[in-house]
């Protein structure tokens, strides 16, 4: 076999291997059905073009009390990083918290689109913000431990939205920020205050 043949067959073999690999990769079942939330999948934490992320905590309170805190506790709102909160005059309009507010010149306004008492509040961004965002708060009875509160956000950044960090970084920050937000909400509901190690009110 000549060197030219070797090159020809070698190239063909390489291409065949690559094509086979792609086929095997594409035929690999994505996520088997199991009881885990979809957002905890190892790969493909996506729904179409949307990146899905979220967090869960259990709060020793009823869904009604948790909802009341989210809707009416002015001490909570400045502490939120990523969880939108209701605007006073229009209860179905949600304002962006600090991190989302600072990311772009145009605020990302969201509006409540579905509510099921003691179970779910869902919202969706509106207008020409820097991203398309869907979110929901879901309440689930967690027995004697309280109410499990889950927040899920699905985000699709608009192309070339310069204010956004890279998508992966954004998703990571969003997940961490949502967990922090839920934990601050739990602190306020359960203890009446947000824990701090500051030695003085004016300390950093």
């Amino acid at each position, binding site marked *: 076999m000549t060197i030219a043949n070797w090159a020809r067959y070698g190239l063909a073999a390489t291409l065949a291997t690559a094509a086979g690999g792609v086929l095997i990769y594409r035929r690999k079942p994505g996520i088997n059905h199991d009881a885990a939330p979809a957002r905890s999948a190892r790969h493909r934490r996506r729904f179409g073009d949307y990146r899905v992320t979220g967090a869960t905590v259990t709060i*020793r309170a009823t869904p009604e009390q948790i909802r009341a805190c989210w809707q009416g506790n002015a001490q909570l709102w400045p502490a939120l990083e990523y969880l939108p909160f209701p605007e006073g005059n229009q209860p179905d309009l949600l304002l962006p918290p600090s991190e989302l507010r600072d990311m772009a010149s145009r605020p990302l306004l969201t509006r409540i689109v579905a509510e099921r008492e003691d179970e779910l509040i869902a919202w969706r961004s509106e207008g020409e913000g820097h991203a398309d965002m869907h979110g929901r708060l879901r309440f689930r009875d967690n027995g004697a*431990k309280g109410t499990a509160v889950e927040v899920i956000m699905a985000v699709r950044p608009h192309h070339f939205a310069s204010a956004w960090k890279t998508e992966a970084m954004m998703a990571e920050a969003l997940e961490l920020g949502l967990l*922090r937000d839920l934990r601050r909400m739990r*602190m306020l509901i359960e*203890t009446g205050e947000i*824990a701090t190690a*500051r030695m003085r009110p004016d300390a950093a």
Partner: protein
Amino acid sequence: MRAATFQGKGDIDVRQMPDPAIVNPRDCIIEVTSTAICGSDLHLYDGVIPGVEKDDILGHEFMGRVVATGKESTLEVGQRVVVPFTIFCGQCFHCSEQRYSNCDNSCPVEDQEVAEKAFGHPMAGMFGYSHLTGGFAGGQAEYVRIPYSDVVPLVVPEDIPDERLLFLSDILPTGWMAALNAEIAPGDTIAVWGCGPVGLFTILSAFQQKAGRVIAIDGVQGRLDMAEQLGAEPVNFHETDILDALKQMTGGIGPDAVIDAVGMEAHGFAIDNIADRIKQTVGIGQDRAHVLRQAIMACRKGGRVSVPGVYGGKADLFPLGAMMQKGLQLRTGQTHVRRFTAELLDLIERDVIDPSFLISHRLPLDEAATGYRNFRDHQDEWIKVVMHP
């Protein structure tokens, strides 16, 4: 105010720091009357606990008098209190089950993530014990801000001196919980590794909880002497093969329960400990778990393993096979101090126990650096250091 601050590994300095003030409604401020250096402070001093920053105020064993209260505090100015080292909210799921050191709410949110990565879940806040536990200013200072003052501090009687009450803040309940975790049945034989302050209070607690025999293991003769005075049978690991001795002393069965009151900085020239020390020094190992390994190997079949000693990372060569094959149970955890304080205060008030026997040195706060250095380097004489700001 003056406070003992961390300036780097092995470097403690008393410096002028800002006075604390009320931040949250449930806070109070206390003026510290007595504070102690704990064996676990030495883990910070030695730089083996991560998350300690320059100018952090140390100290988690302290008591004092209330000088200011927030509007939701139930304390009154002038009341005398002992402050548990674990900060807890009193309302979360864990607090509702009296697992105060597992409190979900007391560690500031922004300090929860490192511990969550390291341990799977965030920890409760603690005074003066690194930013893994919230970065709260500690009690080796003139004043301290106490969060959740309606539930955390223990109000104590006026007629009992500080030195008999101070250890309710940590080491006395820690020894008590260590003995409880060993599930002692009347007449049981218990082996306790480490005769430092926690080990000695563990021995005291084991006898209070009806142990028949306590075997105390250490390498410092002065501490073994104190253990013997409490009724324990001392064994010096420098002179004795511990596993062989424990088998001989228990008729070949082994102790019913073993208690590791040493933790992550085990001493001695055992091969595994030397390997741990080398790995720790070059940065490829974390905890030196020689004592825990030995305790598990020594424990009788079906026995209990209690671990009050502090561990902060991962341990190599953990004898999981021995745990499983012998059917051992392991119980551990930071102390849920406030769960035990009322019962222990009662024992002190009735003169059943007097924890002040432990104090070997009394110093002004300004000599904190001397206290730390000697407590670490001269363990034969410096058993427990109490400082008065």
